[in-house]
């Protein structure tokens, strides 16, 4: 089999390292900037003030003490992003994060009030986190099994499980977990003083520190341990993984479970944060959808997630109010996030081409440009 000859890597001098760092920074920031600009154009087209919107994000996301609110919002986002980083490293597409999150949230919101009322708070909190992690992990078992055993495409299985999971969570909230004292479909609210306390001196949820710790641990595992290397190989080349003797079914299921557990833990952090304490049916947020582009932007590096997730947390916290301010649906954030993803793929492509020493255009594009489709058909 003929190989595609890659150019040999030249030895790396210090200045080149700096150059590479700058290159990476550019590749990560440019898509975001482009998306914001494009978003601004869209706002203008809709007759809304871009300045007002983005200004609102600053005002409500950072200014005064609002950055602390953003920091608190960051916690579930960070944990989900970490979970996705683990599984995407193995080139497995766990797209079922909404369902995993929803069930974790339902479980914590359902059992939280009674557990926290009757057990020492710290103990109950840990138990609730474990419940949620277990729920999230459990919801990955079917797709994990199907993929490990039959190679069934996990995109579809996780998506399907996701929809079922969200519906199931809603059923639970409206049913056994419903707060009997009110009519709105939501769970009993946990007492405020039983929720996660703030970091002393701030109003930031202290689970942020836990999230930081998790990120560091995951990063270490992914980059320095045997398990992380196996995951990396699986993601790079499944056949080579099998050849090297890596036990694929275990690895597939294991990485699925870990990612599901992290997403579930994110749900626990979400419910137990000082903002919430309860879950309302049909309104369980889909943080995974919104944070996914940043997982890619961080190039599946757990530590690199921190600045990106922080950025989105601000966007999210501020954007909620900012959108109402300009009389726009909050789903506008989805547009921004989709645009970031699109721009990112293009920038990645350009960057990759330059790295390989090729032109910016690929053979396919050159083909398409040189002999336009209509001309070909006339010649045929």
């Amino acid at each position, binding site marked *: *089999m*003929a*190989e595609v*000859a*890659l*150019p*040999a*890597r*030249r*030895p790396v001098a210090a200045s080149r390292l700096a150059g590479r760092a700058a290159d990476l920074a550019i590749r990560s920031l440019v898509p975001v900037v482009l998306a914001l600009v494009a978003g601004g154009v869209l706002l203008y087209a809709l007759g809304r003030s871009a300045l007002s919107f983005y200004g609102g994000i600053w005002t409500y996301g950072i200014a005064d003490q609002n950055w602390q609110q953003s920091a608190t919002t960051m916690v579930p986002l960070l944990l989900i992003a970490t979970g996705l980083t683990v599984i995407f490293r193995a080139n497995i597409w766990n797209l079922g994060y909404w369902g995993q999150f929803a069930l974790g949230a339902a479980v914590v919101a359902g059992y939280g009030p009674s557990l926290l009322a009757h057990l020492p708070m710290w103990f109950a909190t840990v138990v609730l986190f474990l419940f949620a992690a277990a729920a999230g992990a459990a919801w990955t078992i079917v797709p994990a099994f199907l993929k490990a055993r039959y190679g069934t495409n996990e995109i579809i299985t996780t998506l399907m499980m996701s929809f079922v999971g969200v519906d199931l969570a809603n059923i639970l909230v409206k049913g056994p977990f419903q707060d009997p004292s009110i009519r709105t479909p939501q769970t009993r609210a946990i007492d405020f003083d039983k929720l996660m306390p703030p970091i002393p001196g701030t109003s930031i949820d202290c689970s942020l520190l836990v999230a930081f710790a998790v990120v560091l641990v995951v990063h270490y595992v992914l980059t*320095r*341990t*045997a*398990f992380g*290397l*196996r995951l*990396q*190989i699986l993601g*790079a*080349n499944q*056949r*080579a993984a*099998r*050849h*090297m*003797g*890596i*036990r694929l079914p275990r690895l597939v299921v294991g990485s699925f479970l870990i990612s599901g557990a992290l997403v579930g833990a994110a749900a626990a952090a979400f419910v137990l944060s000082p903002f919430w304490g309860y879950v309302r049916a049909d309104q369980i947020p889909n943080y995974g959808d919104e944070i996914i582009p940043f997982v890619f932007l961080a190039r599946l590096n757990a530590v690199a997630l921190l600045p990106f997730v922080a950025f989105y947390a601000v966007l999210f916290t501020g954007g909620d109010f900012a959108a109402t301010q300009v009389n726009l649906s909050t789903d506008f954030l989805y547009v921004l996030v989709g645009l970031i993803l699109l721009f990112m793929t293009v920038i990645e492509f350009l960057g990759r081409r330059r790295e390989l*020493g090729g032109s910016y255009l690929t053979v396919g594009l050159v083909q398409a440009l040189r002999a336009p489709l209509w001309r070909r*058909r006339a010649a*045929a």
Partner: protein
Amino acid sequence: MDAPLVELSGIRKAYPGVLANDDVSLELRAGEVHCLLGENGAGKSTLIGILSGLVRPDAGTIRIDGRETTIDSPRTALEHGIGTVYQHSTLIPALSVLENLMLGDTRHLRLDVDGARRRLRELAGVLGVEVDPDARAADLALGSQQQVEIVKALWRGSRVLILDEPTSMLTPQAFAELEKVLGRLEEQGQAIVFITHKLHEALSLGDRITILRHGRVAGALDERQLRDGSAEEVRATIVRIMFGEAARSVADVAELQDELVERSRAGLPRAERETVLELEDVSVPAQGAEMGIADVSLALGLGEILGVAGIDGNGQRALAEAISGQRQAAAGEIRLFGAPISRFPVAARQKLGLRYVTDDRLGEGVVQSLSVALNLFLKRIGQRPFWRLGRVQRGVVEKRAGELVREYDVRTPSVRTRAGTLSGGNVQKVVLARELSFEPKVVVFHKPTYGLDVRTTSTVRDLIRRLARGGGAALVISTDLDELLEICDRIAVLSRGRLVGTVENGPGAAEEVGRLMVGDPVSEAA
């Protein structure tokens, strides 16, 4: 002397790091077989790519019928009457023969099935072969597949037929068939280009031989020269051109090797060898287009080199993967040092001393994005001293990697270089270093020297011998009969997924093996 049909002048093509074609000039004439001879890596495939429109040259001109032309795509090549049979099959396995042949017509909407059937009959008649239009391409035997590919190359009325290394997977009998077909085409006035790295084929088929070496035309022999000189003279000339002044010593070394081989083979009497690897009625189901194996039994003795010959695609991969553990045997038992290992996963078999040098170097042999250093220890992830408590010990890894790179002469800028940037030969050395450097006992080699240059090839064969004589055992699966005859003690033959016989190596082994390879009716017809 008629004017050439196709004329290449001053063709140049460079890839990053290598000059594939350097000022190459060539003439193709109607009714003539022009052989392109050269080692692997000499630039033959690139040249063919240029002729068939897959590759654009950096410089140089192409003249067809005297007029200068640019061949910028396969379609253009076809329009100019250049048909190519590539080294790797371009037949679509899931489609029928007829559908494969009809592919590529953009002028009409409806498929002209009747017209296609007629044309197939016509062309098959010209070639003197029989082809079933409705058979699925995946079900065809290799010889038949090749015939379909030739029909396909001629489908739109080509005047030039290019064959890129067509014989790498053929038996001697199938080769004779091919010769006949080419002879008939010659009579019809076809210009044929035949690429090969095997000297005897070029001599047997070629009216004109051009020798490529390191991307340049090292020499050429025309009809007169081939006719006039004696067989020995011509051979010597070609060898000299192909290998330069080193040719003499290569020939000497080769003779010395043969002697050594004879002597070492006379070593241990076979009856006294302890059986280290045993397969008993092992069956592995087919997977996709890959044939499986059925009821295969063999025994490998300590110190022995057992070859497995066969036409490519007759179950070799299934056999190798069944032994290594990458695929589960559906039936039968595999024993390593007497212990049954059929249920053991890959890693467990590795622990017992089983090693597998895969033929798919880049696809599964290495992980291209990882460094050479890591690749050398990928089958020992988590083990000491390279990993402690799950943590990787970079210093230890790189130090040992450096030693191995030196020992196996792997050409790489550093041990941290990504494995995917190495050349084919060096990737193979990395694979060998990994498999053979840590207590190997029984090693399965699958096409170990495929696509390698002469020096590396002989190094590899040395390694195999050293392994066997040094207390191990080797199973060499290869489609290169010459190679097997050179190093193996015994040669088993795999045909249509079954082991049809085992031959002691010695005088007459070649014919015996060849006979076994074509023992089944399908191959005979091909």
